[in-house]
């Protein structure tokens, strides 16, 4: 009863859950257009993920894995289903998630048969894989048990909280569920032995130990975080596939409105974040100062956005690379450092981008 009254009061006063606010892009997240100046290597059909074996960068594009060779993709392997996640182990074994429902581990890229297969425990939407530290295991993030990989917008609009963090033991073939009920887990890694997971709809990174202990590493992000990968010198490259806006936050707190919107409006015109914007006049827009002095301001509400955040080993942002409202390299879902380059997958324009790592910190640190 008290809970109901509190919810009612909050919805009237705009407090608690009903506070429709978005954190500012400031400090290390100060907007720039760095991603717009990145070199576009090539465009692909249905890019999903990037991974590196330490020497080369590999791209999961639809059903194929391609090696990025002198800036061009060279197909090295094809699978029967679309690849939703790709990862290499330190010993060059590699793991793929197929259609989000099955994870296979191969001894190397030419191996015909998988050394381990995981397709039980109702896997539905595995979207990121990472070696689990020194163990012979993988950490996997699963966005939702209800929505398919491509239906992430629906999961957000339904305020889905059926994501999972999994530990896949390659030796025994066991799947250990580390956490249930996550608000769209999208990104996995290992931090001090625990699983580091991006929880997109809660805009945060959390670490989950094997005993289930959770610790918030980074929270109150102004974006929806996605996959991350280790950076040289310690820390991480965290990607974010779109930014939060007050309009979307408002819609997320209006269940009746959302219900009708999902039922009656075409998906492309939903008031929801997207990986790219078509700039069609029918697209919803939020009234705000988009331009001041001829410059699109940081508070311009973006329909889509591109962002890579460099985190230090403790998970604090150091600097960030943006593609803002008026950019095109949006929907960044993967960033991998290999040699002196940072490879970035912008799913919005379906591009693989590349930037020299040297000088980024010097140029963009605040």
């Amino acid at each position, binding site marked *: 009863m008290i809970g109901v009254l509190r919810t009612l009061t909050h919805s*009237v*006063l*705009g*407090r*608690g859950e009903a*506070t*429709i*606010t*978005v*954190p*500012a892009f*400031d*400090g*290390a997240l*100060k907007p720039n257009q760095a991603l717009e100046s990145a070199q576009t290597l090539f465009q692909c059909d249905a890019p999903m993920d990037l991974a590196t074996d330490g020497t080369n960068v590999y791209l999961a594009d639809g059903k194929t894995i391609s090696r990025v060779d002198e800036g061009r993709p060279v197909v090295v392997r094809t699978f029967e289903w679309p690849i939703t996640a790709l990862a290499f182990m330190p010993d060059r074994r590699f793991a793929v998630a197929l259609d989000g429902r099955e994870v296979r581990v191969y001894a190397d890229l030419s191996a015909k048969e998988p050394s381990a297969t995981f397709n039980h425990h109702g896997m539905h939407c595995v979207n990121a894989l990472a070696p689990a530290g020194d163990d012979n295991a993988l950490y996997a993030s699963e966005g939702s048990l209800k929505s398919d990989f491509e239906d992430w917008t629906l999961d957000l609009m339904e305020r889905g909280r059926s994501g999972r963090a999994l530990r896949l033991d390659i030796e025994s073939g066991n799947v250990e569920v580390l956490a249930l009920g996550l608000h769209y887990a999208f990104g996995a890694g290992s931090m001090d032995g625990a699983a580091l997971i991006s929880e997109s709809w809660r805009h945060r990174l959390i670490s989950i130990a094997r005993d289930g202990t959770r610790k*918030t590493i980074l*929270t*109150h992000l102004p974006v929806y975080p996605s996959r991350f990968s280790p950076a040289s010198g310690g820390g991480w490259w965290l990607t974010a596939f779109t930014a939060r806006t*007050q309009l979307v936050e408002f819609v997320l707190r209006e269940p009746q409105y959302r219900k009708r919107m999902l039922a009656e409006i075409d998906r492309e015109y939903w008031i929801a974040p997207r990986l790219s914007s078509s700039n069609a006049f029918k697209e919803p827009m939020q009234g705000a100062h988009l331009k*001041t*002095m001829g410059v699109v*301001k940081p*508070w311009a509400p973006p329909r889509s956005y591109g962002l890579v955040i460099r985190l230090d080993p*403790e998970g*604090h*942002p*150091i600097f960030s690379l943006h593609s803002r409202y008026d950019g095109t390299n949006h929907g960044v879902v993967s960033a991998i450092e290999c040699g002196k380059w940072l490879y970035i997958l912008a799913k919005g324009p379906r591009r693989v981008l590349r930037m020299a790592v040297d000088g980024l910190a010097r140029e963009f*640190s*605040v």
Partner: protein
Amino acid sequence: MTDTILSLEKATKLYSGVPAIDGVDFDLQRGEIHAIVGENGAGKSTLTKVMAGVVTLSSGEMKIEGNGVSPASPLESRHLGIAMVFQENSLVPTMTVAQNLFLGQERFYNRLRGINIAAQQFLQSLNFDVSPTATVETLGSAKKQMVEIARAVLNKAKVIIFDEPTATLTPEERNYFFALARDLKKRGVSIIFISHALEEALTLADRITVLRDGKWIVTDDAKNFDQARIVQAMVGRDLSDTLYGSTKKKVRRAGKRVLTVQNLKMAPMVRNNSLSVFSGQITGIFGLVGAGRTETFKVVAGVLKRDFLHGGEVILHDKPVRYRVPAPAIKAGVAYITEDRKVEGFFETSSIARNIFLGLLAKFPKGRLLLSRREQSDTGTNWIKRLNVRTIGDEAKVIELSGGNQQKVVIAKSLIQEPDIIIFDEPTRGVDVGAIAEIHELINRLADEGKAVVVISSYLPEILGLSDRILVSRQGKVVEEYSALEATEEKIMYAAIH
């Protein structure tokens, strides 16, 4: 006939045998703007109080137009043509401008309409845009000062003394004050002004006199001075790098995000304001008056309340907070050091130790059962030493201290609470250069220790010299952010205005 309108020869004023000014020679020319600068305790105020008849000389001579005088009261001084405009203005807040102008000159039968008309005509003759029927308490600092000046001119003052005239003015108001001073000069009025803002002295004054430790150090034409020379004369050492180090070569890296303000609203001052503050860094907040900087951080510290409906969020250490009074904010580690120390900063008639100890007690919203006088004294002594408060002892009253030392007491009151986030609002307003350097050093030390430090200042060199990152506020929200490495005065001011 000499052009010197007022002079002091070998002027000495002793307080309990201790000289506040010691053998000072000073002269003021007709139609001259003369700046007196010096650290707190240098004797500037005593010197001007002697001229204004507030105190009398222990030895030495004062002359007006060559005639020896010894005014024993401000009224006598006023009759001699000397008026003083104090830092805390002497107007009656509940009376109208016209009533204040004619205060003390009432006739047996006063007609309100008559004095309103007379005041209107007089203010217009001075080109002062102030309504004679406005109540003084409704006026801003600049307009109050106009009324003070008008009153001095009305009293046919030949010499007007200003004590820190620009301390509470915005940059635009300050420029207007400069224009007023120049206009008075044209009318043949001589002006003495005390200022801690050296560039003002350099811009406005014809001549500058520097005092140190109650002694005259130098008097010269303003054009022969620069800031470094004045500072060196004031403190006997070169502080120019400490105070006016222009562009930073290196900034501190941000630590953990300590405070997030999201879409904060407090009508009409704060409008959808969002910003973050990080540990181990100094975040400078610049903006013109009315930009909502102070109000934003007063909401954070529980001094003011945000809008009742949809007022936005304040997130401290990743948890939403809503403070209705300052006590829980203090307990949570938020210290707000006020811009108005005299009104909000301390109990001026209480001792330094008591004031500092009260800061500690504020950390206990439900109070403490036992209070120890010894603990109070020890705490006071300790912090006086730590912050180098210049006083005769921890039992000295705060009102007896100079501006810089009062500010240190206010800072000590907050630091004793061991806060994680320290918000300095105009930390060096009305503080002498020596104390400014010490306060700046303290602020830097706090950031080096990993505290989240916020400095709100209207003084651009201070923002540029101190901050690691600079947020520019305009019309109730942060509109631009600069790293100290890229910021320039022009960029910041442009963002603050456009």
